[in-house]
C-alpha cells in the first residue's frame, strides 16, 4: 500500500511526511481533580486527571519515603475504538502503558520535594486513532502542570514511523497498522533530554536516527504548543483574579 503517494508526496490523510496532526489541549476539564487536561492529536483524544500530592494511602507501596510516590492508571474507554470490544481491565497492554507513562512522568516530577506523599495520574483514552501513548503523556503533562506539581521541565511525546522509504511524523491508526517501525519518543523539552524511547520492529541505524530526530522535532513542536496553552491559562487565571 502507498502510505505516501509516490507522485504527490502526500500521506493518506493529506499531510506531508513531516507534518503533525492538528493539536488541541484544554486544562481544567475535571473540576473534582487537582489538575486535569484534555489533549487531542487529530482524532486521538485523551483525558488526564491528577490527584495529589496527598498522603500515601498504602505505605507498603512506597519504596523511598523521601520521595513522592507516583502512580498511574491508564485505561481505554470501550467506545474509543471502531469495534467496541469489551477489554478486561488490567490487560497486558494497559499495564505496560501505565508503566511507561508513570516512568516518563517520574523523570520530570521533582519527587524529592514531596516526601511521604503520593501523586495519582489517571489517563483515559476517549478516542483512539494512533499515537495514544504520546497523547497520554502530553495530557498527563498538562494535567500535572494544572495541578501545580513541581516539575523539572515539561515532558512531551510524539511518535514517528518509517513507511514507503520515508520517515513519517505522528502516525495515525492506518499508518500505525501498516506494521512498519514505530518510534515513540518522550523528551524534556527545554533540557533537550530524552526520557522515553520505544520502537517496534527493526530499522537500520542511520535510518533510525533520522526517524528519531523527526520524532524529537515533533516533541518540541508539542512542547511549544503546550507552553502556549499553559501561558494562556495563567493569563486567564490572572485576569479572573483581577
Amino acid at each position, binding site marked *: 500500500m502507498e502510505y505516501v*503517494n*509516490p*507522485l*504527490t508526496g*502526500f500521506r493518506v*490523510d*493529506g*499531510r*506531508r511526511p*513531516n*507534518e*503533525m496532526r*492538528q*493539536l488541541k489541549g484544554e486544562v481544567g476539564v475535571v473540576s473534582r481533580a487537582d489538575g486535569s487536561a484534555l489533549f487531542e492529536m*487529530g*482524532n486521538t483524544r485523551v483525558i488526564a486527571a491528577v490527584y495529589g500530592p496527598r498522603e500515601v494511602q498504602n505505605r507498603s507501596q512506597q519504596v523511598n519515603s523521601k520521595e513522592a510516590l507516583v502512580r498511574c492508571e491508564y485505561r481505554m474507554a470501550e467506545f474509543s475504538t*471502531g*469495534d467496541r470490544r469489551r477489554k478486561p481491565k488490567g490487560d497486558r497492554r494497559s*499495564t*505496560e502503558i501505565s508503566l*511507561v507513562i508513570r*516512568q*516518563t512522568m*517520574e*523523570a*520530570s516530577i521533582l519527587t524529592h520535594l514531596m516526601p511521604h506523599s503520593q501523586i495519582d495520574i489517571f489517563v483515559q483514552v476517549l478516542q483512539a*486513532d494512533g499515537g495514544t501513548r504520546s497523547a497520554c503523556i502530553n495530557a498527563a503533562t498538562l494535567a500535572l502542570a494544572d495541578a501545580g506539581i513541581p516539575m523539572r521541565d515539561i515532558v512531551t511525546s510524539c511518535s514517528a514511523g*518509517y513507511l514507503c522509504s520515508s*520517515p513519517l*511524523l505522528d502516525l*495515525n491508526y*492506518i499508518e500505525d497498522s501498516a*506494521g*512498519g*517501525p514505530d518510534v515513540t519518543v518522550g523528551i*524534556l523539552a527545554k*533540557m533537550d*533530554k*530524552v*526520557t*522515553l*524511547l*520505544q520502537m*517496534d*520492529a*527493526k*530499522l*537500520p*541505524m*542511520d*535510518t*533510525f536516527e*533520522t526517524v*528519531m*530526530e*523527526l520524532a524529537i*522535532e*515533533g516533541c*518540541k*513542536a508539542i512542547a511549544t504548543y503546550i507552553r502556549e496553552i499553559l501561558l494562556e491559562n495563567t493569563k486567564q487565571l490572572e485576569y479572573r483574579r483581577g
Partner: protein
Amino acid sequence: MKNQFRTDRLESKPKPRSSSTLLNPCSSSPPPPPPFCRRRRSALFTLPAAARLRAVDLANMLQSKSFVKKTKQGRVVKVVREHYLRDDIPCGAASCSSCDTAARRLGVDAAAILVVDTNVVLHQIDLLENPAIEDVVVLSVVLDEVKNKNLSVYNRIKTLCTNTARRFFVFTNEHHRDTYVKEMVGESPNDRNDRAIRVAARWYQSHLGESAKVMLITNDRDNKRKATEEGLNAETVESYVRSLAQPGLLDLVVVPSSGDVTMEDVEDLRPSKRKVIYSEHKPMSEITSGLRCGIFHQGKLRVNRYNPFEAYVGSESIGDEIIIRGRSNMNRAFDGDIVAVELLPQDQWNESKSFIADDDEDDNEEDVHLVPNSADDAPRNTNSTQSTVESSAASVSSRPVGRIVGIIKRNWNSYCGSLEPMPMPAGSGGVAHALFVSKDRRIPKIRIQTRQLGNLLNKRIVVAVDSWDVLSRYPSGHYVRTIGDIGDKETETEVVLIENDINTRPFSTQVLACLPPLPWSLSPDDLANPNRQDLRHVRVFSVDPPGCRDIDDALHCTPLPNGNFEVGVHIADVTNFVLPGTPLDEEASQRATSVYLVGQRIDMLPKPLTEDVCSLRADVERLAFSVIWEMTPDADIISSRYTKSVIKSCAAMSYVEAQARMDDSRLVDPLTVDLRNLNSLAKIMRNRRCERGALTLASAEVKFEIDSETHDPLDIGIYQIREANQMIEEFMLAANVSVAEKILKHYPLCSLLRRHPSPTKEMLEPLLRTASSVGLNLDVSSSKALADSLDNAKRDDPYFNKLIRILATRCMTQAVYFCSGDLSLSEYYHYGLASALYTHFTSPIRRYADVVVHRLLAAALDIAKLPPVFQDGPQLTGIADNLNYRHRNAQMASRASVELHTLIYFRTRPVDTEARIVKIKANGFIVFVPKFGIEGPIYLTAKGDKGADWVVDEVHQKVTKPGANISYAVLQSVMIHMEVVEPQPHRPKLQLTLL
C-alpha cells in the same frame, strides 16, 4: 545441526542496538525496555542522502470523513478518518506565477491543459503514452480510481507522471481547499467523483485565467453535458484527437465497445454471421458460489503453444489439469487468464474430433522450424492424423475436459504481429477493419480499426486487446505502435525480444554505480585476504568457443609427485563484485541470464564486468572461485576443496586451437601436456558417467557465419562438437556436482539445485512408436536402460543412431531450477546426467543461478554470510521460478533468432539437400534436414484437397499411394528442395518440396 546454528547467528546480526542503550540517562530510573514487544516483520530500508528535515508544520484545515465498513469478523464498524485540506498544493502550470515553481510540469505554450477522467486513463492509456499527448493533469481522485480498477494501468500512468520527458502533472484535488467536494445526499460515488473532476477543471480554469485553455476530456456523455453547462470546455477523446490532425493517432483511440451502435454496424457485414458465438460469462457472484460448492474450478489457463485450440487449466480443486478443447469452450479466455471452469460430462471427455470442425477458418499448418531440443519445444501431436485410438482411449479419456464459464482475472496484454493481408478499402483514407495475427500462436486474431492500413500492412506492429464480445468471433483491440518492416532483420529481432519478455534496456545509472572503479586491477587487500588463495603461479588456461569474451571458467592440471593429478576448475568470482541486495544484484536477478542471439548478446551484467573485470582473460590477474581435486590417473577423486583464489591464466584458447594442440604429436610443451592429461581424465569420467546411465543425447546446433558488415548470414552449418568441447564439459559437470553436494550438506532447505524429471511413458510414446515401426525395441524403464538401448540401436545406415537420439531428445522435458526445501530428495534426480544431485556453478557471468550458488558455497565455507533472502522460502522459490522462466525465454529467443537467420540465408540461396522423414501425417510427412538442423512439413496433396489417394499406415508409420506403388516410411531418406517463397506479399516462408 550446524546449519541450525548458522541460521541463529544470522538472525541476531542485523538487529539494531536495543533501545535502552540509546537513552539519555538523565533520569534516575531510565525507562526500561518495554516488557513485551509485538514482533513485527523486520524492515530494512536505506534512506536517500537528502537529510535535513524541514521544521515541523501543523496541517491546517480539517475535514472528517466517516464511513462504515465490515471487519473480517463480519461486524460493521464506523470508521472516522481525518482528511486535511490545504492551500499550498501547486497547479503545475508553467504559466502560473502564484504556485510553487518547483512543481512546474505543464508547458508554457500548451495549446490546452487537459483534465482527463478515470475512464480515459483506464481505456486510452496507449494514447496517453503517445508523445503527441502532453500537458495532462491527472487528478488524485482519478489516480485512486484507476488504482482500484486496474493495477497495471495504474503503474503505466504512474510511469508517465514520473517521466520528466513528459508533461503530465498529478494534482491532489482531494486535499485542496478549493477542489475538495463532499458527497451529497443521494449522490453515487461515481457521480461524486465526476463532479470532483469538473470542480477541479473549473478551478484550473479560474486559477490560470487567460494564460491557458483548460479542457476536460471525457467519453461520458452525461459528464460532458454537465461540464458544458457549467461553462467548461469539454471534448470526447476522439474529437480531441481529431483536432490534433494526426490521422495515425486516431488508431490508438479505443472505440467504446458493444453498446455503441456504429461499432455494431461494422462488426461483420454478412448478416448470417451475426449470431451469438460464445456463451455469456457467468456473473462474479455465481462464479464465487460455484467455486465454493465445487461446481466450478479455478485455475490459470495455459494455451498449447503449438495448437492454440487446446488449452489446460491446472486446477487445485481437482488435482489435475483440465483440458479445454476448441475456441468455443475456451470462451474468449486468453493464455494466462485466471478462469472458472465447468467440467463436461464424462462421456464427452473423449470427443477430440468435434472441436476441429468449428475452428476450421484458422489454418493451423506447420511452419519450417528448428529441430526441437526437448519436449517443451516440440509441437504436441494432439492434432496429428488419427491419434491412435487404442492409446488415446487409455490415456486421454482419464483426463477431465471442461469449458470456461467465466474469467476471474484477465491477462490481456499487448502483442507483436502483423495484419492479415487484405485489399485496401474502397474509399482509401477511410477507416479499415483489419485482422491482426499475433506472432504468438496462442493468441487469437485481433480485430482492429485503422486509418493507415497502407502504412501498416507490411509492418510488424504492436496491438493491445480491449474487449471481446459474445457476438464477435475475435477480440477487438487497437493499434499501439509500429516496430518496422516485416522480414527486416532488426525488426524481427526486436519482435523476438519483445515476445520473449527480454529486457534490452541499457543498465540504469544506479546499477552502473555498483561497478568497481575502472580500470579494475588486483588490490593488495585481495591478496591479503586469508580466504583467498594465491594461485597466480599455477598454469591455468581456458578453452572456449572462438571469439568468446565472457570467459567464466578456466582449468589447471598439475601432475603430483605421487603420480596423481591436481585438477582445478576456476570460475569467475562474480559475487565479489555483485553484492547481495544492491541495484546491480536486483537487475541481474531479474534478467537471470544473458541471451545469445545470432550475432548479438544481451548481457545479464554490465559489459565492464562480463568482458573485463570478471572474465578470466589470458595474462591478467583475476579473482576466481576454485574447485580443486586430487585425482588418480583413473580419474578417481581422492579429495576436493573449494577456495576463493587469484589466478593468472596463461592462455585463452578456442576449442579448435586446443584440439589442434592435442592432436599435434610434435608438441610436448607443458600446456599441451596438461591438455592431454585433462583429456584422458575426461574420457574416463565420461565413460563412467555413461555407464551410470547418462544419456548421450543428440541435438543439431546450428552455426552461422555472419558478414561483419551487413550482419547477414554467409554460411550455415551444424556446430561441430570436438573432443575438446567434451573435455571442458566433463570438468564443468564434475564441478557442478561437487558444489551441489557441498551446498546441500550445509543448507538442506535453501540450496538452489537443478533437476531433470524422468520422462513419463506418455512422453516417450512418439519415440517408441517410431522405433517399433522400424523394428527397434527400446527399453525405457530407466535412464540406464534407455542409454544402453540407444547405444545398441545400430543399422547399416550410419546416421541411424544419431537420428534415434535426436528423436529421443525431443521427448525429454527440460531441466529446471528448484529450491531444495520445496521437494524431497528423490525428486532432486537429474535424469539426463544420471546424477543424484546437480546445480549450476560454472557460469556466473551469464547465469544468475550460478551467482546464487556461489553465495551458498561461500557461506558454506564460512567465507561470507548467507544473505537474508535464503531465510525466506517463498522468495527463494520465486527466484527459482524466475530463473526457469527467463532461461526458457532466452532459449526460445535464441531459437527464433536462428530460425530468422535461416530464413534470411535461404532467401537468396535455394538448395537441394538430403532429408529424413521423422513423422507421417495425413497429407504428407515431416522431414528433418540434418545439414541445417531444421525440420518442416512436406505436403503430398495440395492444401484443402482432401482427396485421400494416399493411405496412412499408422502402425508402420508409412504412407502409400495404392495404384502408383510409391510409399514413404519414417526415417527414410528423401531428396528435397528448399526455397523461400512468398505465398502472400511480404510474408516470406521457407518451403520444402519433394524432388
